[in-house]
């Protein structure tokens, strides 16, 4: 690694109205360095990065980039000066194709006499994707992709710019292991080429494994900069949370009863999934594992009534159910947390409280008039469980950090007291401190007799929490494993379709 200082941010401050998002931001990045940035939800990581990119303007402090003081007024300036960013939330134009999204803002590369050369654009896209080992059709429309695929497109787009500094704000939160491995490979490759990378993540092992050094933030303040070779998970955890011993999580034994709550029989949707049969018991946590695009989300969306299915039946407590839309499902006590929180979860124009109570509003109504007191107390009860810190329940959810938005959405469904709770990537973007709390919460819910289906791309999460694990591959159920037989290797083998036993 060169010891050439590329970026130095000192004493950065930034407030939004009365919220002090960044109080004392410090960051040093060297050329070719992979630098981790960690901290709790709402610590100010994204804000600091957005200041660097020119999305937000700092209130005070200095930024030195390549030896010059900078204060970009818009992302355009930053992009033109070699800084790009993969944002925490997907930032694609859903109606446009993959290729058009990748080159958005850089069309001039393919201009000849004012005309866009789409052939050349497609060729460059294919080259780029090939080099990175990503297989997505450049011509497919973004809105038809899964969120993981969108995340990969964001990655491609960031790399298309030949930047000297790439900011990645939780690039792995919606990727499964295979894609993460790919991403890590790419990041290392870039670093070797002299590109510096700022890598934001809540996964400590990932930080320690990928990064050369790491900066920690807490409550908008700089907590320290360390080389990753000098620290371990425990010290890192202490830096983040401020306490020494944050217990990990481990679930003991099987708690499930043998009372079947939800049973899905012969579920089939042409071209998406087929022959799906499974059941969940009261008090059981059913983990669903698989690769990106395996169809986990699609199956569960169909169960929830958000998508149509062609054939098959759903039984709730032995009774056959007709679920035509999410309304039916929710009324019957089946709830689902969506994985795409920006597009399918949050209503940005509404407050934190309103977002949380949206699905359960009827509970707080008498003759359709909302009893705000009841609504608020139910909300606070849940939010204490989830450890969400926010300034005011009446604040727009848009102003929360990504992880805190996720907590609100999780809270939304906990407020519903469902019989069956489907969680699609429940801990996406949630900091480690809160993550264990949420595991405990899920466990508690299961103990109350709720049947829980948890889709997760984080295998450790699936392994430690689930009573049983169902592996999905290519729209089919590849395996159902009991707690005893669940091992990382077996799950992966089923997910990839390599069956060792045979």
């Amino acid at each position, binding site marked *: 690694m060169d010891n050439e200082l590329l970026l130095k941010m000192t004493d950065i401050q930034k407030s939004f109205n009365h919220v002090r998002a960044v109080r004392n931001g410090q960051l040093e990045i060297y050329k070719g360095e992979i630098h981790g940035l960690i901290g709790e939800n709402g610590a100010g990581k994204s804000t600091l990065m957005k200041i660097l990119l020119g999305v937000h303007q700092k209130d005070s402090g200095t930024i030195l980039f390549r030896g010059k003081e900078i204060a970009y007024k818009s992302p355009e300036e930053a992009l033109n000066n070699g800084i790009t960013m993969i944002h925490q939330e997907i930032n694609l134009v859903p109606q446009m194709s993959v290729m058009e999204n990748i080159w958005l803002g850089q069309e001039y590369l393919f201009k000849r006499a004012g005309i866009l050369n789409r052939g050349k654009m497609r060729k460059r896209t294919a080259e780029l994707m090939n080099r990175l080992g990503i297989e997505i059709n450049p011509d497919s429309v973004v809105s038809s992709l899964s969120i993981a695929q969108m995340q990969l497109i964001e990655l491609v787009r960031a790399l298309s710019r030949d930047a000297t500094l790439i900011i990645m704000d939780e690039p792995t939160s919606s990727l499964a292991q295979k894609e993460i491995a790919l991403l890590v490979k790419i990041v290392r490759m870039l670093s070797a080429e002299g590109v510096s990378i700022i890598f934001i993540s809540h996964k400590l092992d990932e930080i320690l494994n990928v990064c050369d050094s790491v900066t920690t933030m807490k409550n908008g303040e700089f907590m320290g900069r360390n080389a990753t070779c000098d620290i371990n998970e425990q010290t890192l955890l202490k830096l983040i949370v401020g306490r020494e011993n944050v217990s990990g999580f481990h679930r003991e034994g099987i708690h499930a009863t043998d009372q079947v709550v939800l049973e899905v029989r012969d579920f089939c949707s042409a071209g998406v999934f087929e022959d799906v049969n499974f059941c969940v018991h009261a008090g059981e946590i059913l983990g669903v594992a698989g690769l990106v695009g395996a169809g986990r989300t699609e199956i569960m969306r169909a169960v929830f009534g958000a998508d149509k299915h062609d054939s098959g039946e759903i039984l709730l407590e032995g009774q056959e159910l007709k679920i035509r*839309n999410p309304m039916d499902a929710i009324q019957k006590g089946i709830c689902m947390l*969506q994985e795409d929180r920006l597009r399918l979860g*949050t*209503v940005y124009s509404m407050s934190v409280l309103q977002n949380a109570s*949206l699905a359960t509003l009827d509970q707080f109504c008498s003759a359709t008039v909302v009893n705000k007191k009841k609504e608020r107390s139910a909300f606070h009860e849940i939010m204490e469980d989830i450890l969400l810190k926010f300034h005011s329940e009446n604040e727009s959810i848009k102003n929360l950090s990504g992880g805190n938005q996720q907590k609100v959405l999780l809270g939304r469904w906990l407020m519903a007291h469902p019989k069956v709770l489907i969680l699609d990537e429940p801990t996406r973007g949630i900091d480690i401190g809160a993550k264990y709390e949420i595991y405990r919460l899920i466990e508690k819910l299961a103990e109350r007799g709720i049947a829980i289906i948890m889709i997760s791309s984080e295998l450790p999460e699936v392994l430690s929490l689930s009573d049983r694990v169902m592996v999905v591959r290519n729209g089919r159920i590849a395996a159902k494993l009991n707690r005893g037989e669940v091992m990382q290797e077996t799950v992966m083998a089923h997910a990839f379709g390599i069956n060792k036993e045979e």
Partner: protein
Amino acid sequence: MASHTNKKLQPEAAKHLREILVNNKVFAVALLLIVIMSFLSERFLTTTNVFNILRQICITGIVASGFSLIIAAGEIDLSVGSIVAFVGIVTSYLMVTVKMPMVIAILAGLLVGMLCGMLNAVIISALDLPPFIVTLATQSLFRGVVYIWTNMVSIIGLPQEFVNIGQGYLGVIPIPVIIMVATFLIVWFATVKTSFGRHVIAMGGNKEAAYLCGVRISRVRLGIYGMVGLCCAVAAIVLTGRTASAQVSAGNGMEMDCITAVVIGGTPFTGGKVNIVGTFIGAFIVGIINNGLNLLAVDSNFQIIAKGLMILIALIIDRLSTNFLNKKRRKE
């Protein structure tokens, strides 16, 4: 100790006031307009004239109150004016030609208005068509029915009690003003206090997310358009009373007046938010502008320019004051 609390309280109160102003800055714009106008014409700030303005904004105001929900839900309704004309004709026809009792004719009118609105909703939902085109079509549909039914002849000879609804007073307050205020209160209540209002905003903010939370979009839509239809019917009754006749051209171009009031009032055209009080003030601002231009005897052609300019200036003030207040807030 007490003084200490006090000291802490005062900036709090100031902050509070500022918050209110930021959220209802259109209120400040209205105040500013009032101040300017009273300097320009001493006739402006008289009780008579204030009631004058209020009475003049009643028709637009009543429809705009419900229209706020349409905009908040991210939709549009171009047929409001035609519904107003249609209900006016139906009610008057029932009273004058069929000689029904007034109350029944009014109830029938309200029902017709609501059904017209609901028809819009049903077509939009059932066929998943853009509201713009559907309501453009029903706009000419309802208007055409009015034309054919009446053969372009307005209906006159309405009973005096009915005319009173549009022209009478309760004490010093014009009855239309009371009806308008009542309508705003009801719509405000439905929007702010009920789950329906919440669902409307959710639908306008993120339709997909609302759907996945169990909000039945088509039912909410039915409610919104039905409510607007009802508002149109109420406006039609007030209007018919006010002009003492059911005009076939009533409500022409009303959708634009409504959108103007709603958007000036701070409900964004893209939906997801609603400000019913703002809509009232928006209608009031338009009323002040119209009234002021008439009071000052501005030449009719200059009025057209002046109206455009004043709307723009009102919005610019609104915007600049927001920026200013935000900056102050940040400085603290």
